[in-house]
């Protein structure tokens, strides 16, 4: 049989199978439903009892039958988008309390996967929306066609091949578990307590040529910066001045931020191109430019990293804007005669024309955005 034909036959078989398979399953499912009857009803005379009635269950958003006293958990699951279908119901029936934490349904769940699938098939009889086979069945993995073509009942292995593996995480079971390799590839952040630092080391001496080659064109040979690129070094005791110079040495609270930032975003335009050891060496060199270390032989490593403190670590306070007088003492604002005399201009806009043609570069002293 050609590959093409195989697929066609397989598809045709799959489309033909569900009705027969469900008919058989549903009969078995009726017996399984005996375990549910104490609380749930289906059929013409069904009403809510200890549990909600299960007519038109497929396509119903969880926790939405009016007048039934659902658990908070079930209502929230519905509000989050839990809609009953073959997959969600199968997952719930297998372990109700794990699936919807806080559900009032005391039933511990059906241990046998066959029972679950039989029961859902039975319940579908009472839901109009479930009459048409869901599209996902047609796109399910193709199974060996021969056995089906001869009308034999599917073996247990074939049944599991049709049923998609039921994800167990979360509430809606969306997304997939991340692999260790994936997390390692992206999770490169470093915290002040050293969490996230990679193995490795680098010295001031190793950092110097790297810095000259990769960093100095913007940050200057001594961290003094070219143009408006960030100044990296110096600026000590300037934070209370009219023009503070905020550098790694004068302003940054933690060395981990230096390592983290070089590693994730530098050099500008060629991020992630430095090795972990090179980042250690550059971080050591920046410490040297700021006189935090003075020995050219100094080696920064994962082991000694958290022993380095930056001068301005204690220079930061919590957000206390609300204690400022204009907020703390807020009263009804003045509406009439709020200030004496006529308004007089004390300062005009320094930069009347913000477009660059007429040499406004000098006006940059007026302020900055960053």
């Amino acid at each position: 049989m050609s590959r093409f034909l195989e697929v066609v036959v397989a598809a045709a078989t799959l489309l033909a199978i569900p009705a027969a398979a469900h008919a058989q399953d549903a009969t078995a499912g009726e017996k399984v439903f005996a375990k549910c009857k104490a609380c749930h009803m289906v059929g013409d005379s069904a009403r809510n009892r200890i549990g909600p009635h299960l007519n038109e269950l497929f396509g119903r958003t969880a926790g939405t039958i009016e007048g039934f006293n659902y658990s908070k958990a079930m209502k929230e699951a519905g509000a989050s988008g839990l809609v009953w279908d073959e997959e969600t119901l199968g997952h719930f029936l297998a372990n109700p309390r794990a699936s919807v934490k806080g559900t009032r349904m005391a039933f511990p769940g059906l241990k046998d996967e066959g029972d679950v699938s039989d029961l859902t098939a039975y319940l579908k009889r009472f839901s109009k929306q479930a009459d048409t086979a869901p599209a996902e069945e047609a796109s399910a993995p193709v199974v060996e066609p021969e056995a089906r073509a001869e009308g034999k009942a599917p073996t247990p292995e074939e049944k599991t091949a049709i049923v998609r593996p039921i994800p167990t995480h979360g509430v809606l079971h969306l997304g997939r578990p991340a692999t260790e390799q994936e997390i390692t590839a992206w999770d490169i952040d470093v915290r002040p307590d050293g969490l996230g630092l990679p193995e490795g080391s680098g010295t001031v001496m190793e950092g110097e040529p790297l810095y000259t080659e990769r960093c100095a064109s913007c940050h200057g040979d001594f961290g003094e910066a070219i143009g408006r690129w960030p100044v990296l070094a110096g600026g000590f005791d300037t934070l209370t001045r009219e023009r503070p110079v905020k550098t790694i040495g004068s302003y940054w609270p933690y060395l981990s931020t230096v390592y983290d930032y070089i590693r994730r975003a530098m050099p500008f335009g060629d991020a992630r191109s430095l090795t972990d050891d090179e980042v250690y060496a550059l971080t050591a060199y920046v410490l040297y430019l700021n006189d935090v270390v003075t020995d050219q032989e100094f080696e920064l490593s994962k082991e000694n990293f958290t022993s380095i403190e930056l001068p301005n670590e204690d220079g930061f306070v919590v957000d206390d804007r609300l204690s400022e007088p204009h907020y703390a003492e807020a009263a009804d604002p003045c509406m009439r005669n709020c200030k004496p005399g006529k308004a007089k201009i004390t300062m005009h806009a320094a930069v009347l024309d913000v477009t660059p043609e007429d040499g406004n570069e000098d006006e940059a002293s007026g302020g900055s955005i960053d």
Partner: protein
Amino acid sequence: MTEMKSSRRSFLKGGLTAGAAAAAAAVSGRAMAEGDPAITEVQDWNRYLGDGVDARPYGHPSQYESHVVRQDVPWLTADPISSVNFTPLHELDGIITPNGLCFERHHAGIADIDPAQHRLMINGLVETPLVFTMGDLMRFPRENHVYFLECAANSGMEWRGAQLNGCQYTHGMVHCVMYTGVRLKHLLREAGVKESAKWLLAEGADASAMTRSLPLEKGLEDCLVAWKMNGEALRPEQGYPLRLVLPGWEGNMWVKWLRRIEVGDKPWHQREETSKYTDLLANGKARRFTWVMDVKSVITSPSPQAPITHGKGRAVLTGLAWSGNGAISRVDVSLDGGRNWTTARLDGPSFSKALHRFYHEFDWDGSELFLQSRAIDEKGFVQPTKNELRAARGENSIYHNNGIQTWHVAKDGAVENVEIS
């Protein structure tokens, strides 16, 4: 007109507009006798055919609106790749910012991401670290919300006094759109946040790999992971295909090109929350984790880029107000530099943590005006004056300048950014 000629180009623009208005007035004078040629003569668009439906598959504004664009100020930053441009607030109305006019701020250029290759990872202190595709995210329950986004450094150039002549430059690092996305709490619940978790780290996929720490409570409260703005896909410069939305909080935290949320028990102290986006006070100490954007407003017209060109008589003053604390309850305007105030008319929808539009219609007698607006939010916070802010913080904070703005309207209708007594 001599006063206008002596000033620089933004005034000239105003002058030209005023000249055009004068010409129109002359025409309407003649029209008394002969009729306005705009009416009496058959116009080209009234005679000849226009473009067909196949000419503009993605529509764009009229050619007569080509001046309504974002503008940058090259000297502000070292390089346009890591820089900012400004929303033309003076040309807009209502509360929604058109997608193509939302100001841009990025730190390593606009990432160009194939959504089929985009992933969102949740890792750290969770039961199951997860990876979502864009398709996975769209299977979560969606919500639509209108929020303003303001850069913490909006008006940051004005701390030391009046600097830039136009509300586009003084206040244009704000925009307001409707986002469509999923609540971050749903994604976190899917991964199962562990008991010890207190903080989140959001990370972008661009070449700056932008990162910010935020408290878990905010993530569970109202944060969205969004993929649409104003009904269509996020613009690349706004984070296509995915961005974080933190209603009412400073724009830098709304990480664009969002690829990862890490759950942890302490903040990470990343570059943009230590070296940047910390508010240096006069005493040399700096506030950190200053997230909320305070109550603020600005008159968008008249303003330096939108002078009064019609002369004396009926005039419309309009502007925007917003607060990270919730909805705006009231806006007052003053025409005399804060001596006397009148409550303006708020119009249009009022959404929490969104822009609000206000109007004040008045008869202008042709005398000089000092225009100010003062917003009050639903929590009762009143927009402070710039001098109140300077008294409390000094002039080196850069961020969170929500002081009251003054526009001077000269007798000829030209408008300038000033500070007053």
